[in-house]
């Protein structure tokens, strides 16, 4: 740490002193800017001199590739890393052992060679070198790859080879899929325009919409390919004629179509069968003879496994994207350096329109003024009375919101009960309309009462309240459907639930349209024509994103009952994109307050994963696990639960092939038993806990290291000053020198005890430099680059 650099410094200084041409730099004594190396500064082209910086960067990346290789083999413990881990100027002042740039380049090239392909590409891309240099580094590894084997000199075990190739292909395919998605560049021009005019905040809403579109596309492809297509090829005769009203009600012609669960057959679909061309064989599970002779497709099995796999894969993708965005936006929260951050991080480089740029400058200027006022003013000026008033207002808002939520939920509950009692003699649009209108009005009331100030905490409050309302509504509806309707003895309850969900989705879309029309278009007309103000409405990002999440929850809930619902959702999202885009461009203005884009994006993805997807998958799992499917329709008619389809298939396999008994027993223990699910959930939670502990530990280390840096900086200042005074005094009177040295010693040991990093009695520290008080002024501090903590 400090001792190392100082002893080296002293050594250099004594060496320099012997050099006759050496002269003391007067600038050093005047100010504590000792770090400024005048020789370094005087050279005007040093920044543009490619050699010096390039060499430093090459040696820095040599160290990094070395560490990466070591890390790939085994994780070094924190204990092994040196104490003087000052996260200094990342190699800008690294004094390396290499004398020439070529040697450094060779070493780096050889290290790059030994890394895996993806690591090498990632390292290359992250290097702050110019393209020409990178291409030089890249060519050497490629040519030598052809000669040497990538795995080293030993012949590895076949299993290891298989695993490596499997993981390579998996990672390659995953990266290919993501690069394909990225290269689709859907709506790229429109997104660029929105970003250029409104900034990152509004852009994040449209990006979220695009993400949801891809999720639904995936679901639609899977269900379409495995469920809809096979069933559509074997259609039973249509019962109702088609009329335009079906699009709104979801009934009529649609009620006996591929749209709903009830349409799907419970048998194995066959083609080129002996009995009859395309007729399904009777008694589904027994008709194996016919199945063996032609293409057979067991619908119940397909339904069960398709829905299961679709949910599983969606879960994995969601968790993956959530962890990625969390990693990007999660930062250690220390005392925030607001002014510096505002100066360097607030300019949105995406904005290109002149008026938006002028607006952004104005906003930043205002925010800087406010921050300055905050920072310079006394903080303890909020009296108890003011604080009490704020608490009262917040409490009142929360009680109103919770009250309206409970009232809504109860209203929906009783309404549904009433409808259930009346036995659905008339259409349901009025039920849903009532429910929706009520929720919408209460939402708007709660939003208005929370105020339009997009303060960070307040924004979270608004989001929480909206979320609470929607979650309670959906849970009441789910309870009603799964608890009441399923056991009511209805003809085909799954199709009924599917129909309800379809209508809800449609109502949601219609209400969003109305919102856009009233909230944005009419408001702008009103404020321009009547109030004669040029202030346009601001796009409310949080509310719109929550609407999207709500729609997506409905879609996920409905996939089991309405396999084509993702398709409906896709159409809805496409229309919504264009409508919202045109509305934003015509009616809204850029937001005044800064929008914490990355933090809010993480929040939205988390909301999509946790209440939304988790709730939907819990409902679907519960339905599949313990609710009896209806007897008269659907692919699971006649079974006690939908899970039974899987069990029967496994038993069938066992009967057909006695060697597969283990599969049946494994199935009965793993899948049937809920204990497995609990164990899996427990393991998952342990992993989360472990990761959070690791992050907590890293936070503590960061805090300690920051304190160490601060202390070392102060030590450095103090010691340099002492050195300077000693030197000055030594020049004046040689006689007083010994006294000064003793003084220096005491002061230093006292200082040493106070700082964090210095040991209590380090003879090196106290004796060496004070004795060498004759060191003269030109201090060039060489700071060692750290070995990197993690």
């Amino acid at each position: 740490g400090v001792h190392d650099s100082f002893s080296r410094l002293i050594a250099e200084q004594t060496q320099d002193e012997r050099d006759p041409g050496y002269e003391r730099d007067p600038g050093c004594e005047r100010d504590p800017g000792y770090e400024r190396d005048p020789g370094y500064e005087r050279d005007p082209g040093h920044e543009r001199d490619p050699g010096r910086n390039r060499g430093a960067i090459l040696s820095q990346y040599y160290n990094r590739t070395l560490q990466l290789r070591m890390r790939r083999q085994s994780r070094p413990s924190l204990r092994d890393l040196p104490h003087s881990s000052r996260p200094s100027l990342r190699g800008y002042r690294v004094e390396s052992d290499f004398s020439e740039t070529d040697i450094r380049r060779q070493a780096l090239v050889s290290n790059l060679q030994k890394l895996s392909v993806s690591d090498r590409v990632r390292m290359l891309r992250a290097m702050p070198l110019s393209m020409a240099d990178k291409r030089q580094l890249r060519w050497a590894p490629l040519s030598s790859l052809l000669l040497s084997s990538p795995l080293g000199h030993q012949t590895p075990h076949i299993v290891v080879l298989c695993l490596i190739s499997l993981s390579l292909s998996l990672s390659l395919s995953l990266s290919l899929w993501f690069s394909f998605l990225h290269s689709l560049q859907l709506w790229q021009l429109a997104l660029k325009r929105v970003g250029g005019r409104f900034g990152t905040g509004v852009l994040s809403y449209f990006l979220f919409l695009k993400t949801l579109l891809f999720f639904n596309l995936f679901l639609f492809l899977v269900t379409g390919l495995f469920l809809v297509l096979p069933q559509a090829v074997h259609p039973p005769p249509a019962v109702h004629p088609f009329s335009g009203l079906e699009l709104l009600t979801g009934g009529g012609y649609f009620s006996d179509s591929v749209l709903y669960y009830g349409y799907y057959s419970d048998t194995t679909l066959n083609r080129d069968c002996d009995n009859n061309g395309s007729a399904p064989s009777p008694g589904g599970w027994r008709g194996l003879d016919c199945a063996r002779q032609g293409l057979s497709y067991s619908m119940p099995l397909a339904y069960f496994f398709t829905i299961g796999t679709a949910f599983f894969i969606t879960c994995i993708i969601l968790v993956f994207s959530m962890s990625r965005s969390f990693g990007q936006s999660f930062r250690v929260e220390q005392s925030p350096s607001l002014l510096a951050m505002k100066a360097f991080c607030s300019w949105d480089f995406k904005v290109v329109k002149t008026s938006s740029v002028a607006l952004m400058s104005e906003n930043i200027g205002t925010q800087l003024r406010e921050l300055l006022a905050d920072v310079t003013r006394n903080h303890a000026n909020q009296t108890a009375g003011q604080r009490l008033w704020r608490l009262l207002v917040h409490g009142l808002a929360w009680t109103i919101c919770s009250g309206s939520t409970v009232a809504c939920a109860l209203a929906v509950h009783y309404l549904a009960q009433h409808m259930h009692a009346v036995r659905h003699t008339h259409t349901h649009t009025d039920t849903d309309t009532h429910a929706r209108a009520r929720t919408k009005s209460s939402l708007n009331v709660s939003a208005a009462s929370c105020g339009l100030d997009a303060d960070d905490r307040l924004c979270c409050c608004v989001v929480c309240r909206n979320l609470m309302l929607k979650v309670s509504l959906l849970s009441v509806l789910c309870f009603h459907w799964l608890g009441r309707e399923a056991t009511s003895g209805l003809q085909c309850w799954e199709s009924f639930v599917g129909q309800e969900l379809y209508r809800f989705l449609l109502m949601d879309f219609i209400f969003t349209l109305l919102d856009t029309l009233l909230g944005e278009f009419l408001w702008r007309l009103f404020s321009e024509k009547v109030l004669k103000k040029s202030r346009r409405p601001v796009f409310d990002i949080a509310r719109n994103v929550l609407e999207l999440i709500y729609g997506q929850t409905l879609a996920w809930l409905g996939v089991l009952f309405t396999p084509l619902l993702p398709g409906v959702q896709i159409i809805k999202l496409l229309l919504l994109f264009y409508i919202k885009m045109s509305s934003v461009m015509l009616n809204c203005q850029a937001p005044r307050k800064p929008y914490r884009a990355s933090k809010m994006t993480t929040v939205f993805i988390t909301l999509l994963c946790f209440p939304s997807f988790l709730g939907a998958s819990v409902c679907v799992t519960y339905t599949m696990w313990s609710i009896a499917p209806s007897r008269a329709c659907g692919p699971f008619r006649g079974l006690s639960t939908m899970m039974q389809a899987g069990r029967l298939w496994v038993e069938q396999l066992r009967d057909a092939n006695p060697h597969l008994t283990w599969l049946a027993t494994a199935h009965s223990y793993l899948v049937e038993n809920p204990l497995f699910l609990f164990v899996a959930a427990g393991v998952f939670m342990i992993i989360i806990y472990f990761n959070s502990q690791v992050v907590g530990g890293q936070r503590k280390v960061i805090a300690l290291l920051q304190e160490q840096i601060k202390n070392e900086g102060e030590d450095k200042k103090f010691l340099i000053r002492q050195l300077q005074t000693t030197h000055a005094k030594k020049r004046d009177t040689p006689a007083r020198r010994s006294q000064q040295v003793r003084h220096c010693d005491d002061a230093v040991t006292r200082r040493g005890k106070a700082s964090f990093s210095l040991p209590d009695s380090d003879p090196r520290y106290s004796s060496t430099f004070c004795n060498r008080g004759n060191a003269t002024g030109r201090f060039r501090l060489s700071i060692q680059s750290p070995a990197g903590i993690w």
Partner: protein
Amino acid sequence: MGNKQTIFTDEQLDAYQDCTFFTRKEILRLHGRYHELAPHLVPMDYTKEPDCKLPLALIVAMPELNENPFRNRIVESFSEDGLGNQSFNDFVDMFSVLSEMAPRELKAIFAFKIYDFNVDNFLCKEDLEQTLNRLTKEELTEEEVQLVCEKAIEEADLDGDHKLSFADFENMITRAPDFLSTFHIRI
């Protein structure tokens, strides 16, 4: 696959793909943008690696950079000679670092270079003053600018030398979660 293009060899495109965050299609599109800045100067055939550099004035006239207050510094930081004359490699480099996928460290290194107006590897008070004036288009008074600079340096300076070294800057950037999303130009 795709249409046969004659601007770059396949190896060149692979190299670009490995060294930047762009795909082949995006590299070709970037070449198109570079070419339309000066159709007479920029050759359509880059297989022989022609040595062609465009001056600063042409590059900052692009719509993506035109309104940016730091446009000159951005182009200068990504040029070999430090004066803003960019070859196609520099051009691609610049947009690659400013793209969505560049990691935080890389962006921090170049952000530091961009805000360092006097190119002395430190963000001193003068650099900050220039930054603020360009950000606010000289809306703040002289006094306010001085105060903001002092406070900002006070907040972010860790080792007490009254200016921001790269370590101080990077430490401050890591606490700003919005840095990645704001330091991004779409091309």
